[in-house]
Structures are given as C-alpha cells and as structure tokens.
C-alpha cells in the first residue's frame, strides 16, 4: 500500500513538472498555455511573469487569455508583410521599411501580435538591454490586448 502511494506521488510530480516545464499551468483556472522560446536566447520565465501580472490585475483578460490562446511564441519580431514584395528590395536596394509599407515597420516594433485564424500570440523577443519590470509590464499589456483580438476572431467573427 505504501509503495503504491509513493509511486502515485512520483507520477503526480512528474506529470506536474511535465505540464509546467514548457507552459504556463494554472490548474485551478483550467489554464494551460504552451510557451515556445528559442533554445538559447529565449526567456520563458519573463513570459510567465507577464501572464502572472495579467492574472492578478485583470481577471477578465486572464480568462480570455486562457480560453482563446493556447500558445505563446517568442520570436525575433512580428512581420505583417513581406518586404520582398517590392522589386527594389529584391534587387538589393537598401530601402527603409517605412517607405515600403509603414505597417511592416510598425509590426516589427510592436511588443507582440495575434495571428488571425489561430489561438497563437507572438511576442517579440526582448531587445538587447531590455528587461525587468518595464518589459514585463509591456508584455502584460500586450497579452491583454492580443487575447482580446483572439476572442474577437473566434466569438464575434471579426475577420
């Protein structure tokens, strides 16, 4: 009997660790959001802190995040267009992005974006030197807003 209890505890601990290792896991809120980061440069704990801020500050946004987002990916930037659509770029001319399409530059500077048709939020990787509470705050605000976009897509059919 005692042996089975020990095995049960070990299995529970392994399952708990597995569910938490690559994700935000909040069983009381039935919430698990996978977090994808670069193997070497990524910062999963920074994203966890940002989600925790959302959880503490804004329960409605947190509920939307848990319900309508199943994955957060940290990437170099958000790309809202292909600069190579302009022949001059393909030709090798060094044209500032803002001249081509302001949306491309704005997306790259944004802290994150939502990809319509998915339940995935992309967060921009922290720029060099950035970090600490300001970055957590910026990401928390982005998560609230982007979870709202996902909700709007799936519930209200905003396409």
């Amino acid at each position, binding site marked *: 009997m005692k042996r089975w209890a020990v095995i049960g505890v070990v299995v529970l601990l392994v399952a708990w660790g597995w569910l938490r290792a690559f994700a935000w896991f909040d069983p009381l809120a039935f919430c698990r959001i996978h977090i994808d980061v670069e193997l070497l440069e990524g910062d999963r704990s920074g994203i966890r802190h940002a989600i925790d801020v959302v959880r503490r500050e804004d329960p409605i946004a947190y509920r939307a995040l848990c319900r309508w987002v199943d994955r957060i*990916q940290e*990437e*170099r930037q*958000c*790309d*809202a*267009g*292909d600069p*190579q*659509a302009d*022949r001059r770029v*393909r030709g090798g001319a060094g044209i500032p992005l803002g001249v081509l399409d302001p*949306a491309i530059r*704005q*997306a790259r500077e*944004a802290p*994150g*974006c*939502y*990809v*319509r*048709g*998915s339940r*995935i939020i*992309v967060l921009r990787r922290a720029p060099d030197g950035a970090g600490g509470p300001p970055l957590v705050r910026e990401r928390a605000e982005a998560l609230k*807003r*982007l979870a709202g*976009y996902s909700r709007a897509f799936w519930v209200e059919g905003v*396409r």
Partner: protein
Amino acid sequence: MVALAVLAIVVVLGVRYFVWVDVGGRCVIGIRPSLVGYDNSTVKRALETLRHGSPGDYRKVCTHVGSINPNPSCGGFGGGCFWHGQNARGRASIDVSTEHGLIWTVAILVHETCHAIQFHEGRPAGFDHEDECYNEDHRIMRALVQFE
C-alpha cells in the same frame, strides 16, 4: 495482440506527424519527415491557421499541393521552393522551411502554392513568376497579422 498494438501506434504516429487530414474539408496533404525539430507541427499549425483565417487560400493549398517538405531546401532556412517538372503536374510537392515561425510558414505556404497554381495553369515562359507570388505572401501576412 502486440503486433496489433504496435500497428495502431505506428498508424497514430504516422497520421499525427506525417499527414494533414481534414475530413470536413476533404483535404489530405503529406508532410515529409523533418530533420529540424518539430517542424511538422509548425506546418500543421500553419495549415490550421490558414483553414480558419483565410479559407480561400486554404482551399487553393488543398487543390494544388499534395505534399510538403518542411526541411531547408533551395530557399535555405526560412525560405521555400517549388520545383517545376513532371512530378508537379498533379498536386505538387512544395518545400516550406519553418525556421522563422508561424507567420512566415503561412506566408511561404501561400507563396509556393501560388507557384503551383502558375504551373498548373501553364503560365508561359518568361512570365514574371515571382512578382505575383511575393504579392500573395505579402497579402496573406497583412491579412492575418494583427497588432497595435
């Protein structure tokens, strides 16, 4: 009994990793084994995103593409390729590298599908194939990526 279980596991894993099956949309696309990480999942995520985010583009992929190679190819890491040839006469095979994440994977998928459509429509030699397809991937990125 053991053989049956092994067979079931092989079938489940095969469907899980190497085939995109959308029964409702009558769409089946093979995905080649990937040498780099979990790229097959990225391809599946891209197809799923397209299915909901832009059904018209998804239908084009299903009609013109039969298999996807997620490994880096002539487009290198983060690029894609469409190979002209007899093999592409039916539903084509396209190369879609997934190195730059979901958004670019969706864009490359649409770009290479555009080349498959050009090929199937028999666009004449000398036609500017790239202009049209870069505009297509630019369009899908603008349509799907929402930021503020």
